[in-house]
């Protein structure tokens, strides 16, 4: 097993890259899993409202209290620059100024311009907070119009608005997979492509370099054994990474109990691992320079990740992007992953499962065939050269 040992020895020098990618994976996955856990029950989206109460009356305080019930409210008078930075970088930020004379104007029914706000122009959060403020003021005005005093009107408005519409969540809340490890599996294409392309391709290129190959084959090592031991080295590495990423991290690190969804996700990841293996085979036969692997690997890994919904959720991808993405295997992985987790508007069905897995395997087969074509072309080239030399 000399070749196998050498393979692992060279691979050891690339282990840092694999650890880096797996570290990124765990970091991103943990962050995404934590944010998705919050979505189990219906909770209202909260805007970050910064209030500058210049009126400081019971009416204005009452409005502040009402807003703080369903939003994250803080008080202060930030400068325009701070507001600008806040609004630009945080679209849920809403700066509200309650102008002086707010209470009197509201009592008199002269409501125009009693509040001023700054927010991301035309954003969801601006619409939400605007509608809440408008509802509160309209309700208070209605009570005043109905003959209530200002204080009574604010108290009644607050009471009337405390009644909320019942919301029923119809998502599959029982799925522990969707709540905990689904986001982990979303990032697998990027991680696997990164780990396998950057760690395995340089090793295979080094092992199949012309001089080393010639030296190896001039010994007692047969090409079949060489191929077998190289493949075994690659397979061992891939299996170890696969077990760590798809089984150890979800079950041991995230504490997710094995379930049907997880089993399906693991099969999906296994299919993608086969795609990666075939891609490694193709790239390492196509490229003979280790430096080029870095360039091609980055383009393939990031390109697929951006276009196929790894970094940006599927629902935000444009139609034209999706039309291109169907020609990439990671897209079919993500479609199935979304369906298993019940996200991105995808619905799981057995036919979808078979379709997505089959397409991924078809991509793998295509890459293997392309590798054979490359090898054949190389062989012909060598043959032509040898004939010319003769």
């Amino acid at each position, binding site marked *: 097993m000399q070749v196998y040992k050498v393979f692992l020895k060279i691979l050891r020098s690339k282990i840092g890259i694999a650890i880096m990618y797996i570290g990124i994976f765990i970091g991103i996955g943990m962050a995404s899993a934590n944010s998705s856990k919050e979505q189990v029950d219906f909770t209202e989206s909260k805007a970050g409202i910064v209030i500058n109460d210049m009126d400081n009356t019971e009416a204005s305080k009452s409005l502040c209290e009402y807003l703080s019930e369903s939003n994250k409210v803080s008080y202060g008078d930030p400068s325009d620059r701070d507001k*600008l930075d806040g609004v630009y970088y945080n679209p849920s930020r809403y700066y509200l100024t309650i102008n002086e004379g707010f209470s009197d104007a509201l009592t008199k029914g002269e409501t125009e311009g009693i509040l001023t706000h700054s927010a991301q122009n035309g*954003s969801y959060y601006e619409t939400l907070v605007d509608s809440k403020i408008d509802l509160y003021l309209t309700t208070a005005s209605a009570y005043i119009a109905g*003959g209530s005093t200002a204080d009574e009107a604010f108290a009644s408005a607050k009471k009337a608005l405390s009644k909320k519409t019942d919301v029923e969540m119809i998502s599959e809340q029982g799925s522990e997979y969707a709540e905990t490890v689904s986001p982990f599996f979303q990032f697998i294409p990027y991680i696997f492509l990164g780990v396998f392309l950057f760690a395995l391709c340089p090793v295979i290129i080094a092992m199949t370099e012309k001089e080393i190959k010639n030296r190896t084959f001039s010994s007692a090592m047969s090409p079949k054994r060489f191929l077998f031991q190289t493949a075994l080295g690659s397979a061992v590495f891939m299996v170890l990474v696969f077990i760590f990423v798809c089984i150890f991290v979800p079950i041991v690190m995230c504490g997710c109990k094995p379930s049907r969804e997880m089993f399906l996700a693991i099969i999906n990841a296994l299919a993608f691992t086969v795609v990666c293996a075939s891609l490694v085979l193709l790239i390492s036969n196509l490229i003979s320079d280790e430096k080029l692997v870095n360039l091609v690997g980055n383009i393939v890994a990031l390109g697929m990740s951006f276009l196929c919904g790894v970094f940006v959720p599927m629902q935000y991808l444009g139609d034209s*992007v999706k039309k291109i993405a169907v020609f990439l295997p990671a897209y079919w992985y993500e479609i199935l992953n979304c369906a298993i987790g019940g996200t991105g*508007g995808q619905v799981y069905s057995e036919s979808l499962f078979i379709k997505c897995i089959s397409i991924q395997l078809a991509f793998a087969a295509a890459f293997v065939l392309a590798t054979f074509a490359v090898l054949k072309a190389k062989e012909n080239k060598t043959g032509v050269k040898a004939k010319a030399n003769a």
Partner: protein
Amino acid sequence: MLHNIKYYTLSCIREKSVIFWLMIWPVILATFFHVTLLSVYDKDIKYNSIDVAVVLKSDNATFKSVMDGVSEGDDALFNTTYADEEKALQMLEDGDVKGVIVSDGEFSLKVKTTGVDQTIIRSFIDRYSVTESVIIENAKKDPTSVAKVSEAFSKELKANDRRDLSDGNMNTYMTYMYNLIAMVCILGTTVGINIASMNEANLSALGIRNCVSPTGKLSKNFAGLISGCLVQSVCSAIAVIYIVFILRDDLGVSTGMAMLTAIVGSWMGVAIGFFCGTIGKFSEGARVGLSIAFSMVLCFLSGLMVGDIKYLLMDKAPWFNNINPAALVCDALYVLNVDGNMDRYITKMLTMVAVTLFFTILGFVMTRRKKYASV
């Protein structure tokens, strides 16, 4: 000097890794950002009519007319579909609608996920329910007040004026493009290191040959820096031109100003690299590796990979953004976009110039009087 500048420039642009990482890679990354990230603003942040399904179990003409009213026009609140419960739930399951409003005497809402869309739908139903209950409550107290109360609800208050803070492009995701330009500038450190190692006998074979030549070190380094800045400026200009003219993304700033910022940022990157190349006794490969890793960390902290990092640092450690070279370039472009006042932009640019001068002078000091008895 001119002879040296010419050949340093030629050797720089003949380096394949320079061509890829400083010219081709930003173009590829910008394309990915363009096709995937920039459109997220229109879908995720900017308000679009929310798709809802309405199930009218009991006849409620008033609610139907209200729903029709808010579903009309270009700036409609909702995009409403009336359906029976089974079909509506199927639409929800398929992701065709964000929520199902069920009217059965009372109102209820069925949703699949939580989010701002669902909160807006709930807020709208709350509004309708409150209007109804307040009118009934006042009618019980004083039936003559119903007209006034109803009028109060239908009256447009115009109470909450919007104050726009900027005329610039408020697409938050544009910071990814700013960070991309910053990345090109900061990757100039590799060019800077290359210049330093070309003139240090213990770092490269070329350095040995250069050191025994009669040309003064100051002159060689100076020529190297000029050529490095030239190449780096071209690379960053290519990135800006590609974003503005090929991808046609609105950076929110004039192309000239964006180029000026990128060019000054590039010089800063080269100067930092030049200084890094002169310290310690690491090999050139180790220096380049460390500088790329360091540049990427700076870019990460400036928001290249995760946009929220920038705001987090702005909140918790605002001083860091004033010393992070990547953040300086990104912030300069950002303030140029959103801030009508040039004060902040000028401060950022002056900081970049100061950093450039500081590291250039420090680099010259470090290389001064270095002699090699043997390498």
